[in-house]
């Protein structure tokens, strides 16, 4: 009960309404007190002033009475007046002193004048000299003493009685003592009234203001209080419009607005907190927060799933099962310099060596000091493996690129070679930075129909077949171009792959030739068969009709065609068989003479002049005379044949030329006959080709070429249609050593050619 009461009082005294009303009342109460004090003291001084004034008046009356009494010598009157006045309320004493301080008259019943020692009296010690009216309040404030000096007026000095000499200015003094107790009482009464009023006012104000606070402030405050506590619990939802126009309503509205803002911010904070939490937990890497003692203070789910619950353990223990700190610790570095650090480490995770990238960043407290360090560890083993694989593949590709047996170049938009492979460098030298057309073909401008340019335009694989002429030799090339694209799909360069297909082309040509050879051969055989058939018929006919001439003619036909077929077979055998030349010491001039002699008659028959442009005896050399003879015979025979034109008026020439030039034998057979179109001269030595109809086998030049090649020589033809042809043979000059015998070694060498 008492406790409750004390509690209530405590609560009450702490309450705002108590404080407001108490202090407001107190202030007013004190103000009132100060005011009353001031009023009372001024009232007091004005009372005293009035008393003094009245006393002076009274003393003047007494003075007049004294003067009058003195003049009339009726001293009793003076006493009566004094007594009469002294009877008035308030008067305590009236004393009249002469200049020597002898008390002559007093309300105190004195019988005769009494000398009084006034030297210590504050008002009367200078009685003889002080001509001013003066007063003094007694120390206890109960009595006021007024002294009015008796001045020597002319009536006094001039009267006949005992005239006071003029020199005496002051004759004596009237002293009035008036009690102040009445006034004091009055003032004290007033004071009590004032205090009572002040207390009453204080109580009224206390009550009023307390009530006002209770009525107007407390409910609003309580309301806000409730809202605040609700808000603190997160339950407050501001709703509705606060009515009212006073400051409390404004305050409530401001509060609602504030709480709305707080709610909003809190939600935002909460959302981002949740997000970061999720991010932290679900990040596909190990995330830990490490404190200054290298202990794990937080770890994300990924970490926990892999390493287990390791909070409060040392990071080196948690991550690596180690008992001491790691060397080169990025966490330590971050604690030291406050910046992020990274290291690549090899960890043992699940018994496997794992490549891990560790990154650390500082976490600052509100003072900007590093509180903890966030450690992020990413397992990049897979990446490393892929990297390794990629590197391996890159090396493989590099190897392929460098060693693939075709020319690979990467060319930019301006046809500059950016890269090329070793195979390319082998044949063209290092050519990076040079123009592709320059390097490949020695051209000054880009090639017509350039596949690189096409690929830059159509972003697709293109190809072209090209012929490179180098040192008089044709090389057939197939060029493929493929775009090299960047990640946006723009073609940044073009890869050019050139494959030498000369051999393929040659085989292709040979295949075609083989086909033609077979066709030509069957044609030849057909001709021969037809001759045989005819011969057989003619013999039959001769036998049946008994005509010997026909039998003879038929038989000649048969023999002739049998010879032809035998020649053909021999030719085919010769052309198709691998054989070594049968080298003998022979004079080239001799050989050429023999061939010319053989065709001299035929040339004359055809109206062709056979010109021998060689010396009959030129250097002896090693040669297969049989082979070379037949080869040259073919050429001369063909040359004479080529001169058989319709126009018999013009005489034709066949020139047989022979020289030795340094280490070579040069033989030329030229004519000014019909010549050949290019398509014929190109395949002349490989094609089964005859211009002689059924008389030729078509094998002549095939055999000729074979013989020359077997000697290690070359044969080529230059021909113009309508102007003639020239066949040029170059044979290596094989010298005869020691009278005709050949060194075994060199013979061996030759045979290998």
């Amino acid at each position, binding site marked *: 009960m008492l406790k409750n009461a004390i509690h209530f009082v405590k609560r009450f005294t702490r309450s705002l309404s108590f404080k407001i009303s108490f202090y407001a009342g107190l202030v007013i109460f004190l103000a009132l007190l100060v005011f009353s004090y001031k009023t009372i003291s001024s009232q007091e001084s004005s009372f005293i002033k009035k008393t003094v004034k009245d006393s002076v008046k009274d003393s003047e009356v007494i003075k007049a009475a004294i003067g009058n009494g003195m003049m009339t010598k009726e001293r009793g009157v003076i006493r009566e007046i004094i007594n009469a006045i002294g009877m008035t309320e308030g008067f305590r004493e009236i004393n009249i002193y002469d200049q020597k301080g002898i008390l002559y008259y007093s309300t105190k019943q004195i019988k005769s004048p009494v000398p009084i020692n006034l030297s210590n009296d504050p008002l009367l010690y200078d009685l003889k000299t002080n001509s001013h009216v003066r007063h003094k309040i007694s120390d206890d404030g109960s009595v006021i003493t007024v002294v009015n000096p008796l001045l020597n007026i002319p009536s006094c000095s001039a009267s006949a009685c005992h005239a006071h000499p003029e020199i005496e200015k002051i004759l004596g003094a009237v002293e009035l003592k008036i009690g102040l107790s009445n006034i004091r009482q009055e003032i004290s009464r007033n004071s009590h009234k004032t205090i009572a009023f002040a207390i009453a006012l204080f109580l009224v104000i206390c009550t009023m203001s307390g009530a006002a606070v209770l009525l107007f402030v407390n409910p609003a405050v309580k309301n806000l209080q409730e809202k605040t506590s609700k808000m603190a619990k997160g339950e407050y939802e501001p709703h509705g419009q606060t009515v009212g126009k006073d400051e409390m309503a404004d305050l409530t509205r401001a509060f609602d607005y504030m709480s709305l803002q707080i709610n909003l911010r809190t939600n935002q904070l909460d959302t981002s907190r949740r997000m970061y939490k999720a991010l932290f937990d679900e990040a596909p890497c190990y995330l830990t927060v490490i404190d200054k003692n290298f202990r794990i203070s937080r770890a994300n789910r990924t970490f926990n799933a892999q390493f287990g619950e390791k909070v409060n353990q040392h990071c080196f223990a948690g991550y690596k099962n180690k008992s001491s700190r790691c060397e080169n610790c990025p966490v330590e570095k971050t604690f030291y310099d406050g910046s992020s650090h990274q290291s690549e480490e090899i960890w043992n995770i699940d018994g496997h060596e794992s490549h891990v990238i560790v990154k650390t960043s500082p976490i600052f407290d509100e003072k900007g000091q590093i509180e903890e360090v966030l450690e992020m560890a990413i397992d990049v083993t897979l990446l490393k493996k892929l990297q390794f694989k990629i590197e391996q593949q890159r090396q493989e590709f590099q190897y392929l690129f460098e060693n693939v047996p075709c020319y690979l170049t990467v060319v930019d938009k301006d046809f500059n070679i950016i890269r090329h492979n070793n195979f390319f460098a082998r044949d063209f030298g290092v050519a990076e930075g040079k123009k592709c057309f320059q390097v490949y073909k020695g051209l000054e401008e880009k090639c017509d129909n350039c596949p690189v340019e096409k690929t830059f335009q159509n972003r697709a694989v293109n190809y072209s077949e090209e012929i490179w002429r180098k040192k008089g030799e044709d090389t057939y090339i197939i060029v493929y171009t493929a775009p090299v694209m960047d990640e946006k799909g723009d073609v940044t360069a073009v890869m050019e792959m050139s494959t030498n297909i000369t051999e393929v082309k040659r085989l292709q040509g040979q295949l075609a030739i083989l086909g033609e050879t077979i066709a030509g051969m069957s044609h030849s055989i*057909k001709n021969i068969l037809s001759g045989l058939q005819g011969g057989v018929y003619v013999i039959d006919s001769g036998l049946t009709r008994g005509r010997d001439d026909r039998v003879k003619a038929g038989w000649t036909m048969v023999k002739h065609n049998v010879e032809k077929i035998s020649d053909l077979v021999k030719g085919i055998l010769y052309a198709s068989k691998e054989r070594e030349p049968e080298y003998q010491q022979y004079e080239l001039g001799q050989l050429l003479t023999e061939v010319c002699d053989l065709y001299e008659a035929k040339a004359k028959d055809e109206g062709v002049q056979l010109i021998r442009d060689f010396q009959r005896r030129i250097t002896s050399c090693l040669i297969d005379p049989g082979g070379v003879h037949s080869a040259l015979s073919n050429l001369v025979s063909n040359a004479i044949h080529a001169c058989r034109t319709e126009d018999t008026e013009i005489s034709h020439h066949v020139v047989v030329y022979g020289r030795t030039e340094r280490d070579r034998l040069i033989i030329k057979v030229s004519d000014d006959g019909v010549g050949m179109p290019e398509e014929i001269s190109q395949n002349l030595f490989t094609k089964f080709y005859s211009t002689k109809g059924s008389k030729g086998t078509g094998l002549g030049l095939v055999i000729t070429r074979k013989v020359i090649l077997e000697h290690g020589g070359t044969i080529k033809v230059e021909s113009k249609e309508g102007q003639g042809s020239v066949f040029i043979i170059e044979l290596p000059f094989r010298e005869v050593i020691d009278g005709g015998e050949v060194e075994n070694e060199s013979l061996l060498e030759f045979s290998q050619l």
Partner: protein
Amino acid sequence: MAKKILVIDDEPDMVTFLSTLLEDNGYEILTASDGDEGLLKVKKEKPDLVSLDLLMPNKTGIKMFRELRRDPEISAIPVVMVTGFATDDTPNMDFKKWIHERSIRPPEAYIEKPVDKDALLKEIKRILG
């Protein structure tokens, strides 16, 4: 009276064979070894039929044929073209086509070497009636 046939071929073997064959079958034979000679004999002898080898020196068979057809005096004489060339592998020698593209009357018959006796005789009989 026996019909006159002119055999023109640059190969003596062929001439011997064809003239023997045709003689045996009752024709009178004349021979020539090239185009020039052949043309002269046609004009002189006015044979009933000409057997003409396609490829010959001194005027090929084609040239001679063209001249023969352009000469109104002899253009009516029927011609049997004898050729050793199959046409498949030698497109330049696709003379049949070549001849047919010209505005002249084509040969009355073609015979390929080796000559099929019966076919030749049959063609000649057909032409001479």
